[in-house]
């Protein structure tokens, strides 16, 4: 018999420490230059927005009638001034605070709410699934932009209302993805195998279901952040999001729209910020998807 020579048991060695899942993800991320670059851009945007008051910038609210619409590169105004003479650099960086907050928070909240709903629907199945999923389907009847505008319009302008309406917009797609992934995982052998080794329902969900569905849901949610940012900017642009004089990229795009023939470069700046941020978030989510996939 081929295996006879190896039947004697070696003395139990000491178990080596495992490297862990997240260090593996980190390793793969570091080796991906494009993702690292996007990560750096997003980090820079978030950090500059968070520490805006300590950067020695001009007051983003203080206007000046004589310094209106200075071009980019004017002395004292590196990115020029807007139609009320407010420093554009300061407004763009301060604007990042609100824009990123409204762009990210709804997705974060919707990620938790949608995951709970979707995993419940997918794992329990039956009537529970029907009730949750058919309710979700109602929201799919409306295009997401229209739904956000309708809810914001009904609730009235304001930051909180924008947050609420965007969260409601993003719960259905996340729930649907969570449900699809979960009901796929639920039928697999390793769920039965876990039960066969004596795992209770809670352990099966917590360890084997969530462990397998969370990363696809997470990656999907990161891809929604850029959409959410653009929607938030769109709401402000339409005047049903953030109200002036708060600096916010969408709102700034709206107010600078009127001077597009006077100083086109200036009015494009908030749009460039939105574009760069959403592009980087998208590329980052692609990079995360491949880094978090341990299977191949």
């Amino acid at each position, binding site marked *: *018999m*081929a*295996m006879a020579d*190896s*039947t004697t*048991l*070696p003395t*139990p*060695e*000491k*178990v*080596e420490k*495992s*490297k862990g*899942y997240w260090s593996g993800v980190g390793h793969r991320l570091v080796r991906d230059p494009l993702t690292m670059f996007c990560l750096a851009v997003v980090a820079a945007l978030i950090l500059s927005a968070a520490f805006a008051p300590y950067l020695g910038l001009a007051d983003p609210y203080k206007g000046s009638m004589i310094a209106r619409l200075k071009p980019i590169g004017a002395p004292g105004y590196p990115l020029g001034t807007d139609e009320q003479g407010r420093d554009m650099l300061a407004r763009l960086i301060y604007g990042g605070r609100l824009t990123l907050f409204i762009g990210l928070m709804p997705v974060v909240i919707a990620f938790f709410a949608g995951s709970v709903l979707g995993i419940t629907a997918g794992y329990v199945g*039956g009537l529970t699934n029907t009730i949750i999923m058919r309710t979700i389907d109602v929201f799919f009847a409306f295009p997401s932009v229209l739904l956000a505008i309708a809810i914001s319009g009904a609730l009235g302008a304001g930051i909180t209302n924008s947050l609420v309406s965007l969260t409601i917009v993003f719960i259905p797609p996340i729930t649907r993805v969570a449900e699809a992934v979960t009901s796929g995982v639920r039928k*697999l*052998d*390793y769920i*039965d*195998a*876990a*039960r*066969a*080794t*004596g*795992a*209770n329902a809670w*352990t099966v969900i917590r*360890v*084997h279901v969530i*462990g*397998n569905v969370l*990363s696809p849901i997470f990656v999907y949610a990161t891809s929604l952040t850029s959409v959410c940012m653009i929607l938030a900017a769109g709401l402000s642009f339409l005047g049903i999001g953030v109200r002036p004089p708060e600096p916010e990229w969408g709102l700034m795009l709206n107010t600078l729209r009127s001077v597009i023939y006077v100083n086109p470069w200036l009015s494009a700046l908030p749009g460039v910020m939105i574009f760069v941020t959403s592009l980087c978030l998208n590329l980052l989510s692609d990079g995360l998807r491949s880094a978090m996939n*341990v*299977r*191949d």
Partner: protein
Amino acid sequence: MTKLLEMKNLNVRFKGKRTVHAINDVSLSMDQGETLALLGESGSGKSVTLKTLLGLLPPKRSQIDGSIHVNGVDIMSLRGRALQRYRGGEVSMVFQEPALALDPVYTIGHQIAESVMRHKGVDKANAMSTALDMLDRVRIPSANRRLHNYPHELSGGMRQRVMIALALACRPRLLLADEPTTALDATVQIQILLLLRELQKEFGMGVIFVTHDIGVAVEISERVAVMYAGQIIEEGTTHEIIRDARHPYTQGLLAANLHDVARGERLSAIPGAPPALEARPDSCPFAPRCPVAMPECRADLPPMLAPGDRRRVACLRAAQPIAAE
């Protein structure tokens, strides 16, 4: 000594859009440390029998009657904690597809340790060294490194070894093996069979080995039970089944092999297909395909004959040669 397994008149019905009578009046008993092969084709109820033994069938859609005792404990009455201790502790299972039965997002060491921690109540470090010991026992080379591998980093044969290590980590009294070698290629198959046989002797546990491959059944088991249409139609020691198969279905299975067949000649096969189990069989389920069927076979269920100790066969013909003499 109490019987390892005592299954009496087990009936399993699946309800839904259509009812399926998956298991019909199956009785089975096993002594401690015995190896039994459940032999039968797809849909004959082998896997359902195993899942019933572990209580893995969906409770809403399945109706289970009869009694199952494992080591004297009535497992049909087990609920909650007791059921979880029984699953994996007393009885555990090796699945057919090791690629699907291991969770892809955890390392194999983690998965074995998880089960050990649950049953033995030890801490993670101890559970990991048990996992390492189990990987050594299933002859996985450089186990210490393999412990931190994900299932996709291992070959099929290696994964099945891990699956066996996982099933045996808590020293069950009874191991259920659901076609554990079907998904593997032939050379790996025999290694896994030899390994299972060795471990069975080493641990002194009972094994129910489900297979559709009569060669595998002969290789591994002391006793064979042949299933057809959710019933056991013949049971005996492996020797008795090979030398003296009484049921025409078993005879057909034994004849349908590749040995002694001339090149170009058609392989012998059993014509027809197994019956759909939408209604409970009220006559011999094999009669439509049986070369020696009699009118009586189609009239009533054949009686279970017991030509010897722990030897049984459900066929009217099986009694005849003796009657004719």
